[in-house]
Every structure is written in structure tokens, then in C-alpha cells.
């Protein structure tokens, strides 16, 4: 059974729809990547899960339960964690405090989890007392992911985690994505770096103009000549 399913989603922010019947499914333990040109509605589709947009049609189910249009605070409590592309850490809070906020919905002792996160992202352990806003872009991304992982989510949504990062950091982030996935957490990721992201993904979706264009195994998409021409150019 799929963990998260977006079925025939249409909607947008204002009057006009951005999405016209987008369907995405993420199964147990999968890494799924969504790629497409700018303005194709990739990030918008992700925001739909969090009730952050006006839906005009379609349903969203989490492990069989309908969560369409649910308030973000409740979606988080259901175990869906989302790392936005920008503005994804509390920049005036310290690294440690960011992780604590990530665990806000947990009532139990989350101290051991913080240790695990520091083991997963060693650079953060050294900077735990530093304000998140003072860190480099790559480290901030780590804080954002670490914060999301504090609740041991059922599924993790990443919105362009490598946007604006240097190639070295990009590789590191993709390695981390794989590492997180190895602990059994399914991941849905929106990406611009089609080549690298398809390489780590189990499956990929290609959205164009708010509609599903193609989908398939990551490795198959990588070899598809049409797709290569469209997105993989360099």
C-alpha cells in the first residue's frame, strides 16, 4: 500500500489553478523525485499536502486516511514532515533549539533523538549553540532536515533541498537523503538537479504545466532520450 497518495489534484493560490489533475504516489521505503521545468507546479503539489493551497479537486491520502485540506499542524502530527525550499529554519534560534522545535509535537523524551541527529550530521554537533541563521547554506539545509527528522516521520517531503548549493554540498545532501531513506523513511523530493536526483531516486515523476507528463523508474528516466534532452542537458 502507498504511504502517501495525491490523486487527481487540481488547485492553486488565487483564482487560477496551477495544478490540473496531478497524481503522485509514494510507497513504503521509496525515494520519489518530482522534476519538471520552472512553473510546472512541482512545489505547489507538495504544498497541497499541507493544505497550503486552495484545492479545486482531488484527494490526498496518508496510509489510507483522507487528509485532504487538513490544517498543517495536524498533518505534522500525522507524521508528515516538510522541509520548504527557503525559510526552512528558525534563523534566530540556535541549532539545538531548532531541533527541539522540530520535536515540538513529541510529548516523550526526545534527547536521544537529538544525539542521533548529531551523529547523522556531525557538523551540526559542533555548532549546536550557534544561531541557525549564521550557518552556511548547506549546514542550514542539514538543520532543516534534522529538524524535520526529530519526529521520526512516516514520510519526509523535501522541496528542492539542493537549490543554491555548491556541487560539493549537493552531493552531500543527496548522500544524506539516501542515508535517511536507509532508516526506512520514504521520501518525496522536488528537484531541479534532475540528473543527480534521479540517480538516487527509486521512481521519478515529470510534471509539465501542472500535469503529469511521464513517470517511471529513476534509472529508466535517466536513459530516456526525450527527457535527457528536456532536462538533463548539462
Amino acid at each position, binding site marked *: 500500500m502507498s504511504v502517501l497518495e495525491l490523486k487527481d489534484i487540481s488547485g492553486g493560490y488565487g483564482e487560477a489553478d496551477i495544478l490540473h489533475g496531478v497524481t503522485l504516489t509514494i510507497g513504503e521505503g521509496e525515494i520519489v523525485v518530482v522534476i519538471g521545468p520552472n512553473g510546472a507546479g512541482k512545489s505547489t503539489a507538495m504544498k497541497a499536502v*499541507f493544505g497550503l493551497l486552495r484545492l479545486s479537486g482531488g484527494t490526498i491520502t496518508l496510509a489510507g486516511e483522507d487528509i485532504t485540506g487538513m490544517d*498543517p499542524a495536524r498533518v*505534522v502530527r500525522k507524521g508528515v514532515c516538510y522541509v*520548504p525550499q527557503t525559510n526552512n529554519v*528558525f*534563523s534566530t534560534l540556535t541549532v539545538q533549539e531548532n531541533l527541539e*522545535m522540530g520535536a515540538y509535537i513529541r510529548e516523550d523524551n526526545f534527547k536521544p533523538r537529538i544525539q542521533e541527529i548529531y551523529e547523522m550530521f556531525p557538523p551540526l554537533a559542533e555548532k549546536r549553540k550557534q544561531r541557525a541563521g549564521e550557518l552556511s547554506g548547506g549546514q542550514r539545509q542539514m538543520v532543516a532536515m534534522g529538524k524535520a527528522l526529530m519526529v521520526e516521520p512516516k514520510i519526509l517531503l523535501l522541496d528542492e533541498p539542493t537549490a543554491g548549493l555548491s556541487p560539493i554540498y549537493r552531493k552531500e545532501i543527496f548522500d544524506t537523503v539516501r542515508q535517511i531513506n536507509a532508516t526506512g523513511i520514504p521520501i518525496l523530493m522536488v528537484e531541479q538537479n534532475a540528473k543527480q536526483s534521479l540517480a538516487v531516486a527509486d521512481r521519478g515523476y515529470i510534471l509539465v504545466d501542472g500535469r503529469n507528463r511521464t513517470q517511471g523508474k529513476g534509472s529508466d528516466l535517466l536513459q530516456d532520450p526525450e527527457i535527457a534532452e528536456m532536462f538533463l542537458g548539462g
Partner: protein
Amino acid sequence: MEFINFYLLPGIVLGSIYALGAIGVSLVFGILRFANFAHGELMLIGAYITYSLFQFTGLHPLAVLPLAMVLTSFIALGIDHTFYKPFRNSKTTIVIVASFGIALMARSAVQIIWGVDTFSYSSGRIEMPIVLFGGLRIFMKHVWIVSCSIGLMLCIHTILSYTRIGKAMRAMSDSAELARLTGIETEKVVRATWILGASLAAAAGVFLGLDSHLHSMMGFYMLLPMFAAAILGGIGQPYGAMVGGLVVGLAEELSSYPWLGDSPLLPPAYKAGVAFALMVLMLLWRPSGLFRGRVF
């Protein structure tokens, strides 16, 4: 010595009162994203409730202050629920208009209940200062005001730095959107903000009353210096607001010291303008404040 007795010490006392008010302004501005014009009126309400409790129980105003803080918090929560909550997702300018109206309503409510006469907590007794080191004049009430203010600021510091709700308040002030995506119950944070803001405002009102007297316009006259202090410190930066309060208080008092020649640098009648001048200069020079608060 005259400088210390008549300018520096009153400046520090006034500064701590402004600081308490400014913390609340800054927290509300940072978390609810609007300039609450009715914040001075929370001070007014707190001071008058304390006056009634003081009359009723015969205890020292500081002894009944905690109860007044609780009552003022309830009033603030009620105002938020009735008048501000319907606008949670509207443009902030509408909320400012609403808060402008709330300020007038709150003040006229005080004027209806308690009248417009001036009250005093000291019931006619005039306190004599303690003279130290052959000339340093210290009033006990000033010692109380400053030490209680410091105590309250330490409380705020503890809450904001070490408690879950306090950290959530800072987080929401940082980014309300991310706070929601993190699963923080934003309405709970809003309530906590009003409780802290109203409690501090009540305390500030009582301290101001202890320092001089109570009158129904005191809240309005506090508005400008409190906002100046909050902006000086950087919106959403409670520690900045503390420093900002002190700076504004000192600047107001020191502005009338005869720095050049024998006459005051600025006639004391224009003291209230100092806060405004500081605020405008700060907004033009560095809108994020001394402590890099949020810029809207």
C-alpha cells in the same frame, strides 16, 4: 551629584518601566505581526486594577500586583478573542485600525469605572529619600521599581530561553509559517504572548503609578516611548526592547540636563518628543534596530 539624583536615576527608573512595556509591544509585534496601539491601555488597566485591589485589601500595591497581572492577562485574552482573532488572516492594517479603536474603548471604560481624577498609591504620604555618601538621594520606591523590573526581566529571559512555549514564541516570531509547518499550535503561542505582554504591561503601569500617580491618559503617553524602545531594540527582540527602554528613558531625562551652559539642552516640556525623534532616526538609519530584529 545633582546630575545623578535628578537626571540619571530618574532616567534609569523610567527606562525600566519603558522596557517592561516595550517587551510586550515587541513580542506582540513579532508574533501577531501588528503594532498594538492598545498596549498602553493594558498598562492603564493593570494600574487601575491594582489601585482597586490596594484600596480593597489595604496591602501594598506590589503585594497585589501578581493578582492584577493575572486579571489584566484575562482582559487581554478576552480582547484578543473578541476583537483581534477575527482578523488573524487579514491585512495587518485592519488590525491596527481595530487596535486604535480598542485603545479608545479601553480608556473610556477606565474613565467610566474609575473616573478621570488622579489617584495615588501613597495616599498622601510623601516619601523622603535616603541620603548616601553625603548627597546621593535614593528613594525606596525607586529601588523597588528597578529591582522588581530586573526580576521580571529575568523571568522573561528564563521563559523565552528555557521553556518549550518560550522557545515556540521565539520560533513563531521568527517565522509564523514555518512554525505552523512544524506543528506548533500557533493559537497557544498567541495566548502565551498576550499573557506575558499583559502581565508586564500591568507591572509597568503599577511602577509608573508608584513613581508618580495614576491618571487615565497615562497609557497613551506611554505608547510612543514604548514603541520607540521596541523599534530601537529591533522588533521581535525582547532583549533589544529591554536595552531600548533604558536608552529611551535615559535619553528623555538627560535631554533636559544643562549640557551646554546653564539652561536645559531641551526644555523639559519637550521631553516626550525625544522618544519620537529617536524612533524616527532609528527607522531611517537602521529599521532592523540595534539588535537586528525583523524588518517588515
